[in-house]
């Protein structure tokens, strides 16, 4: 029995949340609560750093495995393990949660303890999704994520938060229950919930198609793909900044991760069969949502639509079913996790100072907040996909990998890149340049905390853009052996 690091990763925030919620809130100051949450999540981050350090890249399959029997009768077990595909996402999660807490330091003033508790629970559940290699445990965590997110949007959200949070919850649940039926059917056929075993089982073609659609319903809502994406702008606009950050940064990746971890290894035939459908939907997503983003007057909504477009690249890359495409998609996931999170933080900064998200209310910010504009520029350029930033690598690989499949696909994705550049540049121009509006003259530049986390995110963006190999080293083998074989 080795050191149970994965259980520890799940339990640390859980126990932290429990301890916090049992403490007497009236005696604790908000500052103390935030600090303790911050300490817990930072500790969690340091703990998760052990994963890449001790991960043996030369080996195939899952590592750090933990196994406990859970429901013997169905062969459903508490079975954890990670491979190269899960580790970067775990790191992304543990990295973003402290930042979420930091950025809420000033903006969340009421019910602080609950806020920290829900965030820690959320972190625990998300990590649970990434480390589980039993299909039922996976589903349990995948669904459980909804609960804290529902509360976070519902309690600290904007004016229309009820509509947004209900839509978020019900959309995702509706997709997920179909996956649940699929999971149950798989277990009734294979007699086990173990992902490794199921991946080797070959289902009948006809059954594969149905099961694939069941799983697709859940993941497509989560990603979100084109016809199922309407919950995302609402949820993003209404969520507090920290909620948007974790939503765009990590929650959207759960869907793509599900495609990579479950759909493709389980249903090889169906994945090829449904390739055209997914390419079509993704192309529509890229072009259509980019055009929609172009017309938005609300910054958050614009970035939310850009998220849909960027996740379109991810789904295209995944379903090229080639090493390059998959690598690119994965890189795009991580990069989008950092960049879109940073962009939502950027919006949060001005919203906190000026209490409006309308683009028209801002102009000439660069004169008043030069540091802010600097960081905004880095993230904007990374989102556009400028070489040297992390956004470039993923998009580039995805586009290259599509050429071998279909040239029209390449054209559409490339058009998406251009459209992406146009709305992001437009957003940047409208906010940062031009005459200084009199209402915003008194805005203060970034505080030290903000400076701290923006420089972390910016460093990471540029580092990944310049040295993408560090990520590819980690995922290459796992994608090649674990998913595509």
């Amino acid at each position: 029995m080795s050191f149970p690091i994965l259980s520890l990763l799940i339990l640390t925030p859980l126990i932290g949340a429990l301890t916090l919620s049992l403490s007497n809130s009236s005696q604790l100051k908000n500052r103390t609560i935030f600090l303790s949450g911050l300490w817990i999540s930072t500790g969690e981050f340091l703990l998760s750093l052990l994963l890449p350090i001790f991960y043996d890249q030369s080996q195939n399959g899952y590592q750090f495995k933990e196994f406990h029997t859970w429901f013997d009768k169905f062969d459903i077990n508490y079975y954890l393990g990670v491979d190269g595909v899960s580790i970067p996402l775990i790191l992304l999660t543990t990295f973003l949660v402290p930042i979420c807490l930091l950025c809420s330091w000033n903006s969340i003033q009421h019910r602080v303890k609950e806020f920290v508790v829900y965030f820690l629970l959320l972190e625990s559940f998300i990590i649970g999704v990434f480390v589980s290699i039993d299909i039922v445990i996976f589903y349990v965590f995948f669904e459980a994520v909804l609960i804290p997110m529902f509360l976070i949007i519902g309690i600290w959200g904007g004016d229309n938060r009820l509509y947004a949070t209900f839509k978020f919850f019900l959309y995702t649940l509706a997709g997920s229950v179909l996956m649940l039926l699929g999971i149950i059917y798989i277990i009734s056929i294979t007699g086990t919930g173990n992902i490794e075993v199921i991946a080797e089982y070959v289902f009948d073609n006809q059954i594969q198609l149905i099961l694939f659609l069941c799983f697709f319903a859940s993941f497509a809502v989560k990603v979100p793909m084109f016809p199922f994406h309407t919950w995302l702008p609402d949820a993003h606009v209404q969520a507090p900044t920290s909620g948007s950050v974790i939503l765009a940064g990590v929650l959207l990746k759960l869907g793509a991760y599900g495609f990579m971890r479950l759909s493709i290894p389980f249903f090889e035939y169906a994945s090829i069969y449904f390739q055209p459908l997914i390419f079509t939907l993704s192309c529509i997503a890229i072009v259509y949502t980019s055009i929609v983003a172009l017309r938005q007057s609300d910054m958050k909504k614009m970035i939310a639509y850009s998220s849909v477009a960027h996740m379109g690249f991810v789904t295209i890359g995944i379903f090229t079913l080639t090493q390059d495409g998959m690598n690119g998609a994965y890189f795009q996931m991580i990069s989008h996790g950092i960049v879109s999170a940073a962009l939502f933080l950027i919006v949060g900064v001005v919203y906190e100072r000026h209490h409006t998200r309308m683009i028209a209310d801002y102009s000439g910010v660069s004169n008043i907040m030069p540091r802010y504009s600097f960081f905004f520029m880095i993230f904007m350029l990374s989102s556009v996909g400028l070489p040297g930033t992390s956004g470039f690598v993923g998009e580039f690989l995805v586009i290259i990998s599509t050429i071998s499949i279909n040239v029209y696909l390449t054209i559409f994705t490339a058009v998406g890149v251009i459209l992406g550049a146009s709305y992001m540049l437009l957003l940047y121009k409208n906010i940062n340049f031009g005459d200084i509006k009199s209402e915003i003259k008194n805005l203060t530049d970034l505080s030290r905390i903000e400076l701290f986390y923006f420089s972390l995110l910016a460093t990471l963006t540029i580092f990944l853009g310049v040295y993408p190999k560090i990520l590819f080293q980690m995922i290459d083998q796992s994608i090649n052996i674990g998913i595509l074989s």
Partner: protein
Amino acid sequence: MINFYSFAPEIFILILILSTLTLGLINKGSSISLNILGFVILSFFLIFNGSSLYLNSSYSVNTINLILLSKILLSLGSTIFILMVKRPLKNENLFRYEYVLFILFATLGSFVLISSDNFLTAFIGLELQSLSLYLMAAFNTKNLNSNEAGIKYFSLGALSSGFLLFGISMVYFDTGSFYFQALDNFSYLSEIGLSLILISLFFKVSAAPFHIWTPDVYEGSPTISALFFASLPKFASLIFLFRIYHELNLSDIDSLYYIFQIVCAISLLVGVYGAITQKIIKRLLAFSSINHVGFILLGIMSYELMSEGTIFFYLIIYLITTFGIFAVILNLRSSNGELTKISELNGLRFSSRSKSISMLVFLFSLAGIPPFAGFFAKFFILSASINEGLYILSVIAVVSSVIAAFYYLSVIKNMFFNDKNNDLLLDNNKIGSFVFISSALILTLFFFYPDPLINLVDGLFS
């Protein structure tokens, strides 16, 4: 020679009834403690010595386990229920020792019903149970709604008993026997008779489309009575329905099998559609219970996978959740009496942390969101039904649980997102708090340590 030992529990309850009656004449307050003591003794007897009860009976082994476990649960449930009864009744100025008597009669009826092996005994058990329930519904005699609930329940209940008797007589006419075992090859007359019997049972467990009474009766009767209707007698009737279904092999008779399927589907859907627009919490719970009955019927039809275990597990989780929710509601009062409207729960988060978090657990558990135990209950039922090949019903079930999530979420919305309602009064009592906190703990901790419950249901039936 009659083997008296095999119905020792029933005789014991009868003795309890007689002593409660006698004691009630002398000292009205002590009936509760007497009965708690009695039921604790009964539970201990059943747990440690129960397996010897049916040694010489004609039941099969699985049936014996089912009967025994149901009786243990009923007697434990009654203990908790009698413990909870006093405070809510006192609050409404209703505390009379007769109420405890009704509980006893209903429990006796449930016991007889569960272990009956012929239709006549079953009828007696069912009537004994139902008559006490009518009285419990109308117990608040000064309240018009309560009277209305009692009369509605009684008149419709009497109608369904009529169906039951008519069905029984048709079966008797056809086969010449009341015994379940004697019924193997029968004609269409028995089929009609059995369908009438089923209709009556569907009425008792409030499966749609025989559910019309449920919301009205729940709403009108005192909350504590509504808790009783929703939990123990329903549990007993469902167990009996399960026995009927399997001991008579109803799945082999096409017409009855279709009736079962249709009723299951309608219950699943009517339960959720009815609940969406409800503003009154007891009506909401009534409709939600119809939805859950749909799930249990689905479980009854898909028998193979974990045998009785799936249904039993679902029922246990459902009982725990129901007790928990009602315990929270009973521990709250509005300025003009019992808590009725959902909007009165507004901002419960600010007035009571433990209550709101427990409610959160219960509602998510009812909605079937993991990691709470309600998810696993639904998971097992769906596993069984998919294994059985009931795909369409399974899809209906999960779709209904998505719709159901909407109204459970709206209650959570009221408690967590809305501002505080100043009319809400806390009426903390230790037993109620104990019940809902421990229920919430069980539902949550099941994820971490499922073994005890799983072994309980699994070990007894395999």
